[in-house]
């Protein structure tokens, strides 16, 4: 994974069939990038479903959550509507896995992104990185600890 302290590489991906999202548009906010292998798979569904419930805690830290997988924008739309997600899923679909490669979390053998988390601060610097075993839902506690630590450092 990319090292803590380095700038998060810029990217632009579809967030809906007719909208794109650039990472730099979120400057001034913390960003949680949640790379996950596949829409609809059981572990990913649980993980994104959990984050859907913990969004309000992320927002207290001025943090936006973004999910990223290699699934297409239409697949994301269906998955998101089915699960009532309140955060964007980005389609790292063409060229496939380009952003995941940029963040060093692409699994070329499976053709999917790894299950990995980055927390990026308001200036676009990576402040926390976590690679989860692929079959294991990492939960929200690591993200919250990282967000809290960032806010504490700022206060001191």
């Amino acid at each position: 994974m990319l090292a803590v302290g380095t700038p998060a590489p810029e990217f632009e991906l579809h967030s809906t069939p007719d909208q794109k999202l650039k990472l730099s548009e979120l400057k001034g906010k913390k960003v949680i990038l949640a790379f996950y292998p596949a829409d609809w798979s059981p572990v990913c569904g649980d993980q994104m479903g959990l984050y859907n419930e913990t969004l309000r805690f992320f927002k207290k830290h001025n943090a936006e959550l973004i999910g990223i997988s290699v699934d297409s924008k239409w697949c994301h739309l269906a998955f998101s509507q089915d699960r009532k997600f309140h955060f964007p899923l980005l389609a790292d679909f063409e060229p496939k896995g380009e952003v995941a490669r940029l963040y060093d979390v692409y699994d070329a053998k499976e053709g999917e992104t790894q299950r990995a988390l980055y927390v990026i601060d308001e200036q676009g610097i990576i402040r926390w990185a976590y690679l989860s075993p692929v079959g294991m839902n990492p939960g929200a506690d690591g993200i919250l600890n990282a967000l809290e630590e960032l806010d504490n450092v700022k206060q001191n």
Partner: protein
Amino acid sequence: MSGSLLTRKVTAKDHIQGNSSAAIELVEYGDYQCPHCGRAYPIIKKLQHALGNKLKFVFRNFPLTNIHPDAMNAAVASEAAGKQGKFWEMHDMIFEHQDQLSESYLFSYAQELGLNVEQFQNDMVSEAVISKVEDDFESGMRSGVNGTPSFFINGEKYSNNWDYEPFLNYLKSL
């Protein structure tokens, strides 16, 4: 994350079933509308039966409100019943009627359990009862709960098979 620990220790504020000084403490974070929790419900009963006073069981709320629209209300109903000393009765009632959790059903369960229904309805919208559920959720989130049911055994997250046999064997091995 893996290897997570229970960040909020079990206290008298929790709903505890069984021997409160038992050597084995099992905490479940559950969602009343989650089918996996429904499947775990009779397994826990069997474990309690098999382990008797060696087991202390604690249930905490972890409602996933977006995918389970009745989960929050059901959790609140169990806590409201708890105000009248019938938490576990409502807990069981709900898990035994998982497909009937709309408000009118919850009120009828309260009646069936002999609760003061007016008091129950007031408690269901009270700040104290709702924040109890929210506190449970937050403590689970901070402890690495990543789905439901999630189990903690003596303060450590248990991520292995919770089918009856392997679960019992693991608990017996402690």
